[in-house]
C-alpha cells in the first residue's frame, strides 16, 4: 500500500472557497502565516468571509490584505494591536470583530476539531467576555460555555510537508496551525519544503496528514516572510 498524494496547484486548492465561507488562517505575527495562500484568496475574490485568526498581522502584511480588499465581514481574533488599519476598519464598523481570550480561541478550535460541542471555562468571568454567553455552575463556580469553532477552509503554513500532508513546523511558526488543521472541512497547507514520503520520520510528524486535504509547495518565499525591520 502507498499513501495518497495530495499535492495541489495553488489556484485549485482554494477554488472551492465561496462567498460567506468561514476561513481559519494559521500564524501568530509573521511566523506560521500562509502569506502566499492569503494573496491567492485575495486574487480569488470570495467575499463576505468570516476569518478566524489569532491576530491581524501588521499593515500591508498577511491577513491585512484580505481586510483591505473588503473581503472580510467578520474577524474572530484575539489581538489587533500591531495593525492600525484593522483597528480603523473595526472602529468605522466596516468589519465586525469578535475578541476571544487567546487560549480560549485555541480551545474553541480544538473542540471543533475534536468533535466536542463546547468547552467550559472560568476565563473571562467578571469581564465583557461574559456577554451573550451561557453561564454554567460547575463545582459551585461560574463557567462560560465556549462553543466550538469549525471552518469551511483552513489555510496553513508548514516548514516541511510530504505529499500525504504530514507536516512539521519551525520554531514559533507552529502556534495555531496544528489545531486549525483539525477543525476545517478542507485543509490547505502551503509548505516551504516538499519531501518524499518517508522523509519525515513518523515520530517527528507535528500534524498527521490525515487532517490535510491539499499540499501546495511554495516556489519562492516572498519578502513578506522575511525578518521585519522595525
Amino acid at each position, binding site marked *: 500500500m502507498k499513501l495518497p498524494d495530495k499535492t495541489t496547484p495553488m489556484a485549485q486548492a482554494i477554488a472551492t472557497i465561496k462567498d460567506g465561507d468561514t476561513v481559519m488562517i494559521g500564524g*501568530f505575527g509573521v511566523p506560521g502565516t500562509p502569506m502566499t495562500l492569503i494573496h491567492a484568496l485575495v486574487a480569488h475574490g470570495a467575499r463576505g468571509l468570516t476569518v478566524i485568526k489569532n491576530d491581524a498581522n501588521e499593515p500591508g502584511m498577511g491577513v491585512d490584505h484580505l481586510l483591505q480588499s473588503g473581503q472580510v465581514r467578520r474577524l474572530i481574533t484575539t489581538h489587533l494591536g500591531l495593525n492600525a488599519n484593522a483597528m480603523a476598519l473595526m472602529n468605522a464598523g466596516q468589519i465586525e470583530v469578535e475578541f476571544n481570550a487567546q487560549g480560549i480561541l485555541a480551545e474553541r478550535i480544538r473542540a471543533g476539531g475534536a468533535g466536542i460541542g463546547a468547552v467550559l471555562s472560568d476565563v473571562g468571568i467578571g469581564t465583557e467576555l461574559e456577554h451573550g454567553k451561557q453561564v454554567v455552575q460547575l463545582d459551585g463556580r461560574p463557567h462560560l460555555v465556549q462553543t466550538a469553532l469549525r471552518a469551511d477552509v483552513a489555510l496553513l503554513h508548514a516548514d516541511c510537508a510530504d505529499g500525504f500532508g504530514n507536516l512539521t513546523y519551525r520554531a514559533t511558526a507552529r502556534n495555531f496551525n496544528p489545531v486549525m488543521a483539525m477543525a476545517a472541512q478542507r485543509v490547505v497547507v502551503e509548505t516551504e519544503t516538499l519531501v518524499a514520503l518517508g522523509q519525515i520520520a513518523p515520530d517527528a510528524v507535528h500534524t498527521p496528514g490525515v487532517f490535510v486535504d491539499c499540499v501546495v509547495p511554495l516556489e519562492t518565499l516572498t519578502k513578506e516572510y522575511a525578518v521585519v525591520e522595525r
Partner: protein
Amino acid sequence: MSSARDRLLARAAREIVPGMVVNLGIGLPTQVLAHVPAGIAACLHTENGMAGIGPALPPSQADRNLIDAGGAYVSTLPGSAFFDSVTSFAMVRAGRIDLTMLGAFEVAANGDLANWKIPGKFSPGMGGGIELAQKARRVVVISTHTDRAGNPKLKSACTLPLTAAGCVARIFTDMAVVDVGPRGFELVELAEGRSLAEVADATGAPLHVPDHPIATF
C-alpha cells in the same frame, strides 16, 4: 526619561527569582528581557509557543520564525522548547506560570486591571492577557504612572472594560513601586528623584505610605 525607564525595567527584572517560569506581556514588560541577569536559573515563557527564551536578537541575526508575542526576535537557550497555542495556554491555565508582567491602561486600588479595550478609540484586544491576568500565580504591572495626558493610571476604580478583577499584586512605574494590599495602594519604593508628594499627586486613589524609610530605585 530613558534612564528612568531603564531603572524601572531593571527594578522590575529583580522581581524574577531563580526557579520561576515567567511570562512578559507586550510593551514595556517584554523590554524587561534585556535586564534579566544572564546567569539566573529561570524560564521565560511566551504565549506564541516557546519556553526558555534567550536574548533578543537584532534583525541582522534574527531567525524569521522565532519571535516573542510582541513580534521581537528572540533566541533559544539550551533546553528551550517550542509548542502550539493549545499547549501554551494549558501551561497558563494550569497555573504553571509563576509570574506575569503585564502592561496597563488602568489599575484599580482593589487590583482590578484594564488593558485591552478603550471603546471606540484604541482596542487592541486581550491576546493572552485575560488568561495570564486570571491564572498566573503572581501578576505585576509595568507601566508609566500616568497616561500621555498626565492622568493617573492608578485609580480608585477602573472605568474601562476589565481584563481581570482583583489580579494585580504589584505595580512598577517610572515613579514608584506600589503594592496592592488590603488597604489599597501601598507605596513600596520611590524612583530616584521623585518625591512622595509628587507620586501621591499622580496617583488617583489614596497612596498608603509605610512608617519606615522608603527605598529608592
